[in-house]
């Protein structure tokens, strides 16, 4: 569900309005069922929104959630929970992910078996709710939590602000809120909610979508380091503003209905090292991998280097089924390992931030470049001193097809970098728990974002990048 589309808001408003009618009738004629009715309305809204994307997304969702429910119920019915049962149920929940996302990579690229399946779009949000459902099951079993009411479980899995692109929520954080919610507007949180939604739409429409429309126009010379860095910078900004924008809207929507979701991004490009980066970038995925992959492997024990690399290979492959994603994950893992040996190196904070930013931006190359040959060429370019000769820098303008493209890029990149600068003001706070993005959520900033969004949002609609995960 694309939060930046009119269709989403129209369907949400329609479902919410219909739910008011249903609840009005229920309260009048069957007040005992008021709680159940409100939860059903919330679930129905999620299903309608998911179905409006595609029937395949709906079918895949029900498959995963059904097996998730069976997994929890089996545990309830039998105390003898064998490894075999665990493996089968895990495989069942992962089956859609394996089929739609990893089949070609595993069986045709890695094992060269030439087992083809029909090529279809990955059901929206598959990676997100699969991980969320699995973590619910593992937490229920591990912590011996009681099995929730089925409707609460369904709403946990399908809560519409976060179902298609996270955050990946935990049972302990989301379930209590979900079980309390009555699908009413929470007017006490309206102010905060609107600010997050406006900020998210601004990030998405002003920067991410415009960069998305402009990027295909770039003429990149693969042997020119400045061209390649520029391409990496554009992508790095695009994916951040896209994903963070979505996450802000998700937080705002959650607050609107009385649910506080995890803030998935906390100014990651201001990190002083890669460890901090992964505490700020896609926060919920990082903590999921830590708790369900890293710790079970042994965490920071004897084999912490191997464990770290495994975690980040999984992270890379979670994002996409391809060698580029694997390399991207591995490079992040290697960076984390190096940070582990770094100790408290005495370097100025600005330098650490610059190095971390440069590294994170540079390795996006492996994330977005689908052509393996080009990927390797560009990677070699980044480490080739000859590719940094002055004449290479002077030919940077050749990246643009026309002066109009150059000026448009300059405008959007200028706004993006300005937003990042304002984010950086958060780090000058003396408080222990600074409010993230506080300056961008002040009233003057919000009003300016509204104005700029109306003025500069692209005329074509664009989906969120992370929907493909």
């Amino acid at each position: 569900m694309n939060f930046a589309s009119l269709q989403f808001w129209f369907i949400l408003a329609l479902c919410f309005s219909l739910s008011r009618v249903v609840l009005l009738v229920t309260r009048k004629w069957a007040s005992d069922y008021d709680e159940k009715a409100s939860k059903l309305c919330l679930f129905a809204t999620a299903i309608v929104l998911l179905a409006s994307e595609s029937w395949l997304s709906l079918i895949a969702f029900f498959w995963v959630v059904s097996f998730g429910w069976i997994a929890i119920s089996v545990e309830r019915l039998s105390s003898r929970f064998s490894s075999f049962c665990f493996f089968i149920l895990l495989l069942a929940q992962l089956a859609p992910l394996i089929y739609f996302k990893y089949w070609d990579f595993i069986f045709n690229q890695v094992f060269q078996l030439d087992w083809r399946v029909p090529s279809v779009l990955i059901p929206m949000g598959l990676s997100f709710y699969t991980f969320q459902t699995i973590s619910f099951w593992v937490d229920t079993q591990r912590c011996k939590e009681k099995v929730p009411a089925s409707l609460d479980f369904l709403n946990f899995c399908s809560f519409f602000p976060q179902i298609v692109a996270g955050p990946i929520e935990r049972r302990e954080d989301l379930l209590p809120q979900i079980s309390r919610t009555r699908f009413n507007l929470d007017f006490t949180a309206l102010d905060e909610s609107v600010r997050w939604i406006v900020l998210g739409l601004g990030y998405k429409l002003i920067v991410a979508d415009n960069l998305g429309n402009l990027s295909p126009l770039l003429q990149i010379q693969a042997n020119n380091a400045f061209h390649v860095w520029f391409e990496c910078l554009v992508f790095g900004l695009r994916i951040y503003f896209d994903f963070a924008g979505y996450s802000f809207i998700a937080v705002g929507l959650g607050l609107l209905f009385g649910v506080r979701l995890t803030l998935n991004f906390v100014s990651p490009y201001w990190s002083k090292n890669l460890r901090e980066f992964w505490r700020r970038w896609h926060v919920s995925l990082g903590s999921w991998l830590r708790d369900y992959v890293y710790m079970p492997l042994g965490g920071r024990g004897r084999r912490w280097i191997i464990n770290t690399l495994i975690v980040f290979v999984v992270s890379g492959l979670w994002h996409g089924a391809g060698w580029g994603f694997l390399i991207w994950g591995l490079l992040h893992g290697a960076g984390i390992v190096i940070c582990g040996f770094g100790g408290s190196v005495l370097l100025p904070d600005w330098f650490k931030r610059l190095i971390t930013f440069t590294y994170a931006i540079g390795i996006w190359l492996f994330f977005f470049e689908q052509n393996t040959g080009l990927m390797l060429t560009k990677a070699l370019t980044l480490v080739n001193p000859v590719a940094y000769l002055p004449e290479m820098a002077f030919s940077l303008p050749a990246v643009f097809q026309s002066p109009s493209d150059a000026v448009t890029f300059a405008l959007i990149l200028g706004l993006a970098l300005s937003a990042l600068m304002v984010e950086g003001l958060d780090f000058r706070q003396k408080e222990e728990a600074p409010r993230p993005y506080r300056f961008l959520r002040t009233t003057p900033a919000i009003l300016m974002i509204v104005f700029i969004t109306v003025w500069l949002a692209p005329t074509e609609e664009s989906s969120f990048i992370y929907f493909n995960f």
Partner: protein
Amino acid sequence: MTTSANPEVAFWLSVQEARDGELEELRKKNGGIPVIIFTGGSSCAFSVRPTIVEKETGLPAINLGLAAGSGSKFIIEQARLKCRPGDILVMALEPHFLVQEGRGRPTQLGISLATVGGDPSMAAGGESFGDRVSLAEFSNFMRPGPRYTATWGGKAIRGDLGYRYKIGDLRAGGWLESAYRPPEVDRLKVMQSRKLSNEGKQLLQNFLSRAAKDRIKVYYSLPWILVDPSIEEQMKANSRSLIAEVSKILPVLKDPNFGIQTNAGFFADSSYHLNREGGTIRSRIIGRSLIPYLSSR
């Protein structure tokens, strides 16, 4: 507010106004005889010389071509509305309108021109197509957007706020002759598919049906494009197959090179805009290919 300040919109509005005046004069001067009206994107506006067509055919002619960015339906509908029964309408639409899906929706420039012209629904094709411009599209496209804002800002910094083309570029008959010359005209180097799309087919059929009710005879003429010699033969083959498909729906005016050119000497400031010499040659070819149809009327 921003629409009125848009130099591109202002330019095309002034061109339309001048052409309307010229068409009125043409009709007054020639009594009730049919007029040949050309329409298409800028490959028509900057290429077809009506005075040359007039010499070849003996019929008055006028060029009502606009910018391709106005959208295919707006381009042809605005021309249809200026036709009278018996007139001849030559559609010189750029091939991408006929081969690519999704090209039929209203565009930002089309909505701006249609709105200032008094009827926003024209951007969706008006009566010929029965489509409407939705409120969402209207609200969306009446904003300047990033490209216009950035381009306007860049030009303001350079001290040149106008559009590249000026009303002084307008010549007799409504064709535009650009004085701007780049160091080298870009050639098309990458092969373009030229297979008629379902949407392209619908566009032609619906328009033809409406034009038939108005007793307007419609023909198609493939625009000229400057290509790299390495793809010349394949592009000609692609164009031949497009013409074969289009000719099943409406008559296509003959062109010995199927719109594919490698001589940059015929082109002005882009691979679709002809200079005086190129425009003369093309217009002569169009005029001569129209004659058989005029004799059979």
